[in-house]
């Protein structure tokens, strides 16, 4: 027993390797939030009038929620009240003007990405992956733009999209996650400073994987990005997102919004490896990751897949969802969420079936170690007109040690009698029997744990693009270091 627990502890105690701070000159807006701050952000980004108006509406909505203390309280997570006036809402590395090539990016920032294993130099990059790098609140570089443009694909920072493609932004911004959707979505809509924008025109299969790498660097700063991906009729795109942050004693707020729109026969595959700083072994510091992600299968036969591997953050609150509006559309959610030490996660999905013959698949794998608390919360809703809708949900929890917790809250609402629903759930524990068996065959304790955990997550890993799957496996090993004895 004690040895088991110790190894899990050892695994858990491995250090967070991405916790360094980059020394760059920052431009920050003073702490606090009011209409003037919104105006400054919008002005800094040289935004058209419609953007400022939308932001102000969002801010007023958020302010009314804040006043009514309507911050969501229903999730199974616990944290002291956040003082929203004690946060910087905008931070950017200081630059003279907007950048047109990599040579103009601060070498310190390039070094940061190099250190993270994300070389922005196109020559050195993994073939077939284009990267948009977001440093604190702004996009610092986007690679392979030329090659993508040849195919007609737009892949750029959100700010650039606002300048160059305002009609597209205006058409789709808030069309899936309106500013009034929830407390954090409203906050994001008011203050978001950058993010990624992807537009894949009709009939185009995006020739490479697209990826955004988010890095928080500044202290006492919130990070609010917004990603918008539109796949027109018959288009296909696979998008990856990764994130890290420095080690800091304070908790930092990250409230992002992601909107996906898939038209007739279009397909969007969205993969996340989330590795924000999780806090230390005593639960001090770490990112509050309060994120709204939603995709709309607007067209017939469209498909949206969410795959996420969540190992970081002190608190994760996120439910990547699909609105299955087009007939025969398909929504998928594959998730691995790991909580160790004092991490908390309340994550899952919503599958809203509106069209006929719509189909959704939910596979959730929760791993809890240390004092980690892991909650799956998922909603499947079959509306009146969704004839012959199908859902399959599988949700498995794995416990390592005896101080952690796993919780499952499925919500199922069916308004059409022709629906087929399947729900499977399991909870297991890495037991002494399993550990003894693997160690008796010569495997060291941490290798044995890592093997059991990887086996447990296999269904999700095989949905990830190859390089990401390898990274995810390694990350899981690192995140669990010290958790088994």
């Amino acid at each position: 027993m004690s040895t088991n627990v110790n190894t899990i502890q050892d695994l858990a105690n491995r250090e967070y390797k991405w916790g360094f701070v980059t020394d760059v000159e920052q431009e920050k807006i003073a702490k606090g939030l009011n209409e003037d701050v919104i105006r400054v952000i919008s002005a800094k980004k040289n935004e058209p009038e419609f953007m400022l108006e939308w932001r102000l509406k969002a801010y007023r909505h958020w302010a009314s929620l804040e006043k009514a203390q309507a911050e969501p309280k229903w999730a199974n997570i616990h944290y002291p009240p956040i003082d929203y006036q004690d946060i910087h809402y905008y931070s950017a590395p200081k630059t003279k003007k907007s950048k047109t090539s990599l040579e103009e990016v601060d070498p310190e920032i390039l070094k940061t990405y190099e250190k993270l294993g994300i070389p922005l130099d196109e020559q050195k990059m993994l073939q077939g992956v284009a990267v948009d790098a977001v440093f604190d609140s702004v996009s610092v570089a986007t690679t392979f733009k030329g090659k993508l443009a040849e195919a007609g694909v737009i892949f750029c920072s959100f700010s650039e999209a606002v300048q160059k493609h305002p009609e597209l932004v205006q058409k789709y911004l808030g069309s899936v996650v309106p500013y009034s959707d929830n407390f954090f979505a409203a906050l994001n809509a008011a203050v978001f400073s950058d993010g990624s924008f992807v537009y894949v025109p009709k009939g185009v299969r995006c020739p490479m994987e697209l990826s955004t790498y988010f890095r928080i660097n500044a202290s006492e700063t919130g990070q609010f990005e917004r990603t918008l991906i539109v796949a027109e009729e018959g288009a296909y795109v696979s998008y990856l997102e990764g994130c890290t942050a420095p080690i800091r004693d304070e908790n930092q707020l990250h409230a992002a919004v992601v909107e996906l729109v898939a038209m007739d026969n279009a397909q969007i595959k969205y993969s996340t490896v989330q590795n924000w700083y999780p806090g230390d072994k005593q639960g001090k510091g770490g990112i509050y990751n309060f994120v709204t992600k939603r995709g709309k299968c607007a067209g017939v036969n469209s498909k949206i897949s969410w795959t996420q591997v969540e190992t970081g953050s002190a608190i994760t609150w996120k439910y990547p969802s699909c609105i299955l509006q087009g007939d025969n559309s398909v929504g998928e959610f594959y998730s691995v969420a790991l909580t160790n030490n004092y991490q908390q996660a309340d994550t899952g999905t919503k599958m809203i079936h509106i069209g006929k013959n719509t189909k959704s698949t939910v596979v959730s794998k929760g791993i809890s170690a240390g004092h980690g608390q892991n909650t799956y919360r998922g909603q499947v809703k079959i509306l009146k007109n969704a004839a012959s809708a199908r859902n399959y949900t599988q949700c498995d929890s794995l416990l390592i040690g005896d101080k952690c917790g796993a919780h499952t809250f499925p919500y199922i609402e069916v308004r059409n009698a022709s629906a087929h629903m399947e729900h499977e759930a399991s909870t297991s524990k890495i037991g002494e029997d399993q550990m003894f068996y693997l160690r008796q065959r010569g495997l060291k304790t941490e290798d044995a744990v890592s093997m059991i955990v990887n086996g447990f997550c296999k269904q999700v890993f095989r949905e990830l693009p190859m390089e990401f799957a390898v990274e995810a496996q390694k990350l899981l090993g690192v995140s669990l270091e010290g958790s088994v004895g």
Partner: protein
Amino acid sequence: MALLEIRNLHVKVENHEILKGIDLTVNAGEVHSIMGPNGSGKSTLAQVLARRESFQVTQGEVLYKGKDLLAMKPEEAACEGVFLAFQYPVEIPGISNAYFLRSALNAVRNYRGEDELDAMDFIPMFKKKMKLLDMDDKLMNRSVNEGFSGGEKKRNEILQMAVLEPKMAILDETDSGLDIDALRIVANGVNALRSPERAMVVVTHYQRLLNYIVPDFVHVLVDGRIVKSGGKELALELEDKGYSWVEAEATA
């Protein structure tokens, strides 16, 4: 020097004394059978030798290749060549049989300072050993023991032994749950591994298995003590007279 030397071994499991002073010497090349009624401590002995750490050794010592076996972790003992064929093999969902066994083999090879085997070298060897145990190739890519029948699980244990080539193999009730055909296949697999360098300790409740794996020595374990030792004919005598015979003799 004996390969394994157990002296006055006392073991507690969950605060109950199960082994109450075991003495046993096993030399390389020998096959020993441990027999005994249910609850006599056979499985405890098998697992404590494989270094199950939750079992508490209160007295005695065990020397393996002259080293203190009781000071070793399970993975060290495994890398030193101690193998336990489990009575109840565990399932490992999502990990293929081939991947698992290659990882185990490479862990052992690493320990010995040998190069790791890649999949290209491993698979042909693995397939050959599977043939020895009349196992379907499909079991190679299935998750370890998941959805295996009782017989397939036991064969899988012997397959692992064949791949890992231990110095000292301990078989814990490998015959339980096997029909007569499966028993013969498993026994053939075990016999193919008998060699002058390798010792085996075969734990069994029934004499049946010993018709196929003929032991050099038979020991009868009753209430945590070896009460009688002899040659292979002792097993037949037990079959004939039942355990009550030695139990009576032991208390006399």
